[in-house]
Each structure stands twice: as structure tokens, then as C-alpha cells.
């Protein structure tokens, strides 16, 4: 469904991604692992059109995404939950959600809100509260809900467990598992390799802007290099 083919992209004079190719099929959860600065966030930004594709192509279904603006990419059915959550602190929870479905007709927005409030009851309770007053875990739920708001076929998640307490990380991953049931495909960027390999179907390992390894989650869990680099510690 998503095909990133030999993509080069970066910032200013620097290429961060060097001929990266990844793919993802309908209904899959695919994890992207890599050290700090490997280019994981850059990969997601490139897919969503936040930064330009310099070489290669990004296609979604039969649609070429090269050159589309983030707004247009969202309309194609891809949403992006950014690293660090980026909740609007002074907007209410509901405003945060509505903005994530900016170009959706009102009636449909209403349906989505209802569905998400049913799914995340805590957000329903806090709907009139400013985003900045939520706890870290609640903000992550809001970020996930924002990602679901446009009813995407594919969600790009950038380190959803970052900076959360272990117990809340569990909740986040449970939520992701539930999402899989509902048919949303997920491209998951994580530092938490153990958990993401447990959840994912397949995974890629990114090293300095290139795909160093790819395979099924089970294969990679057994891989020596992955074990050493990412599964060795307590992470």
C-alpha cells in the first residue's frame, strides 16, 4: 500500500536519507528502528510532505505523493503523529481534535469525535480542558486520537512511548494493538525495540540514513545485531 522507493531527502545542503526503500501492506504494522539521528523522523516527514523528496518516489496505493503538501497527504488517508506529541497547549482537547480533521465536512467531524470519545473516555471527560493541562500520558492519547481523527488508512507514529512511564507505555501499545483490529495500518518509529518488535509484523533498521536490515519482526528479534544494539539493555 505504501511504497517508499530509493528516497533521498534532507535539510538544507545535507541529505539525511540516502536511497531508503521501505514498503507496507494494507493492515500491517511495520516498525522502523534506529539510533538517535538515524533519520527515522526524517523518513516520516518525507512521506507526509513536510520536507521534499529529492530523489526517488513515495507512492500510496496508486497515488504518487511526491510534491504533495501535508494537507494533501492527509486527504489521501495518511496521518502523522509527531515525535514529542505537539499538542496545542492553549486549545481545548476538542479543538485539538477538530483541527486534525480540518478539511472534513462538519457532520463527519462530529461522527469522528463521537467515535474517538468512545474509544478514549478520558478525552471525553477532558474535552473542554486546555491541551496543555493534560498529563503526559493523556497528551499521548490525545496525540493518537488526533492521528485517528481524519480516519486514516495509514498512521505514521513517531516514538509514541517517548518519555512515558512504563505503565502508560503499556496502555499506548495496547491501543495500537486495538487499532490493528480496526484495520488501520501503522508505520511505527520507536526506540523501544522490544515492544515494537512484539507488536509489529515486519521491521526495518535504519542506520545513518540507510536501511541496514529488514525482515519479519520475529527474524529481527533473533538477529544478533538487533539484539546487541537495541534489545541488550532494559529498554
Amino acid at each position, binding site marked *: 500500500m505504501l511504497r517508499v522507493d530509493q528516497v533521498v531527502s534532507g535539510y538544507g545542503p545535507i541529505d539525511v536519507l540516502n536511497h531508503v526503500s521501505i514498503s507496507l501492506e494494507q493492515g500491517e504494522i511495520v516498525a522502523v528502528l534506529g539510533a538517535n539521528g538515524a533519520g527515522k523522523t526524517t523518513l516520516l516527514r518525507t512521506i*507526509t510532505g*513536510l520536507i521534499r523528496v529529492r530523489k526517488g518516489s513515495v507512492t500510496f496505493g496508486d497515488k504518487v505523493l511526491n510534491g504533495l503538501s501535508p494537507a494533501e*497527504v*492527509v486527504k489521501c488517508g495518511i496521518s502523522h503523529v509527531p515525535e514529542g506529541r505537539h499538542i*496545542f497547549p492553549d*486549545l481545548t482537547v476538542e479543538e485539538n481534535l477538530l483541527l*486534525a480533521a480540518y478539511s472534513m465536512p462538519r457532520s463527519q467531524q462530529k461522527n469522528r469525535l463521537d467515535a474517538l470519545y468512545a474509544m478514549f473516555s478520558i478525552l471525553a471527560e477532558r474535552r473542554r480542558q486546555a491541551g496543555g493541562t493534560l498529563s503526559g500520558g493523556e497528551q499521548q492519547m490525545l496525540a493518537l486520537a488526533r492521528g485517528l481523527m481524519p480516519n486514516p488508512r495509514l498512521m505514521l507514529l513517531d516514538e509514541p512511548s517517548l518519555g512515558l512511564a512504563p505503565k502508560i507505555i503499556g496502555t499506548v501499545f495496547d491501543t495500537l494493538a486495538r487499532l490493528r483490529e480496526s484495520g488501520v495500518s501503522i508505520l511505527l518509529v520507536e526506540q523501544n525495540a522490544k515492544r515494537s518488535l512484539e507488536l509489529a509484523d515486519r521491521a526495518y533498521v535504519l542506520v545513518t540514513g540507510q536501511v541496514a536490515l529488514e525482515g519479519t519482526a520475529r527474524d529481527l528479534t533473533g538477529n544478533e545485531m538487533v539484539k546487541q544494539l537495541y534489545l541488550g539493555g532494559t529498554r
Partner: protein
Amino acid sequence: MSVDIFLNLTIRGLTTGAVYALVGMGIVLILQTTNVMNFAQGDSGMFITYLAFFMITTAKVPYSLVLILAILAGAVIGLIVERFMMRSVRSRSHLSLIMLTLGLSLLFQGLAAFLFKTEPRLFPPLVSGDPIKIGPVVLGRQDIVVLLAAIVTFGILYLFLYRTKQGAAARSISQDEYAARVLGIPTPSIYMLVWAIGSAMAGLAALLIVPRFSLEPSFMGLIQVKAFTAIVLGGMGSVFGAAVGGLIIGVVENLVAYQFPAIKDSFMLIVIVIVLLVMPQGLFGKRSQRRF
């Protein structure tokens, strides 16, 4: 100072303050969303006022139509400025953006002086007639119009910001521009919209207040300085702060000018420096909102 005089000074101060508020609200709107401090706000209004002047005096277009055309002209100027100037330099430093709008302000002044000459012209007021007496307070009719216009503009801006999705988008951009883009909010069109609204307000403000002065290329200069001080006092964070800041400055300035005429011009300026130093968040700003 008797109560009557105090009341008169205060109410008239409010009408002057309404002027600062009108200009300041436009500046804050643009500043908050697009991160550009528009030093050309006053002078784009001045330029539009010249266009309006010739429509009224030469082409004999009815005043109400001119008012609408002036607002539209402001919007068009805002669109052009955003699309062809600001968009390509958005990522530059604040200093570059300030310089760009200073250049724009000079351009408007030059165009006005070059095309229309610099001698002051008398601009007919929108409403004429004897001043109105309300109890002990005497108010010019145009002053009342200005006050009403400020209130109505504030109301419209409030509705825009808090009741439309474009307004919510504008507020979201001011809090976290990156997040807004990630979520797929079409930020370029919001920038254009905000510039259009902000500049339209410049046209409206200048047109309403020019009858108090005379029309010349520099007539918005001092008003813009006062509008800036109003913004600072209001905390730069909100349209509401700019409106209240403008009113406060109008009133205080009027009272000070009556009691201590010698320091009337410097007083507010000194106050502003003190405000900046001891409470940079102003009356209504939040510390978190400082983006400079």
C-alpha cells in the same frame, strides 16, 4: 480636576484609545499567526486612505461604498504582501522580517508622496453634525463611530478566531506551527487569510481616524507607535490584550496630557519600557507565549 472634566477626558480618551486598538488588533493578529511584526500596518492604511480620498472627492463614490472598497483594498494588499513577499522569507530571522515590513512602509510612504503629493488634505468625516451630549459628556459623532467600529471589529475578530475553523487554525499555528503543518492544516492559505484580514483592518482604521488629523503620508506614524505600545501593554499575546491596551493608553494619555502637558508624549513611552522590563508578559500575556 472636577468629575465632569474627568469623565470627558476619560470618554474622549477611550475614543482615541479605540483608534490605537483598531490598529493594534490588526498588528497582533498578524504577529500571532505569522510571526511577523508588521511595521507597515499604519502606512498601508494610510495608502488606502489616499485611494479612498480620491474616490470620494474626485470620483464622487458614496461614502459607504468607499468604506467597503477600502476594506477590500486592504485585504488585497495583505494577500499580495503575504503571497509575494512574506512567503519566500518566512524562515528568516525576526530582524529580516521586521526590515521587510519597514521597507514596505517606506514604499507606501514614497508612493503616496510621489503620486499624491505631501501637502495635508482635509478628509471629510463619515458622519458630520453637532457633537452629542450624553449627560456631562460631549462627544463628536465621528468619535462615536470610531468607538463603535472598534467594538464591532473586536466582535468580528473574536467570532473569527473562536467560532470558525480558519480562526482555530490561526490560533493553532500561533501556538505550534510545526504541529499545524503535521496535522495537515493548509498553513499557507491561513497565512494569506490572516494577512488579508489584518490589512483590511488597517484600511478601515486609517479611514475612520483620518478626519481627526489631516491626510498626509506621515499621518499614521505616531498612531502606529501608540498601537505598538498598546500591544506591549496588552502582552502581545491576544487581540483582546491589544484592544484593552489601546483603550488604557488612550485614557491615560488624555488624563496625563491634561494634568501634566509637558510630559504627555514621553509618558506612555517610558511606561512601556518599564512594562517591558518588569512584566514583559504585559497585562494579559502568558510567559509561555513569548516567541521572541
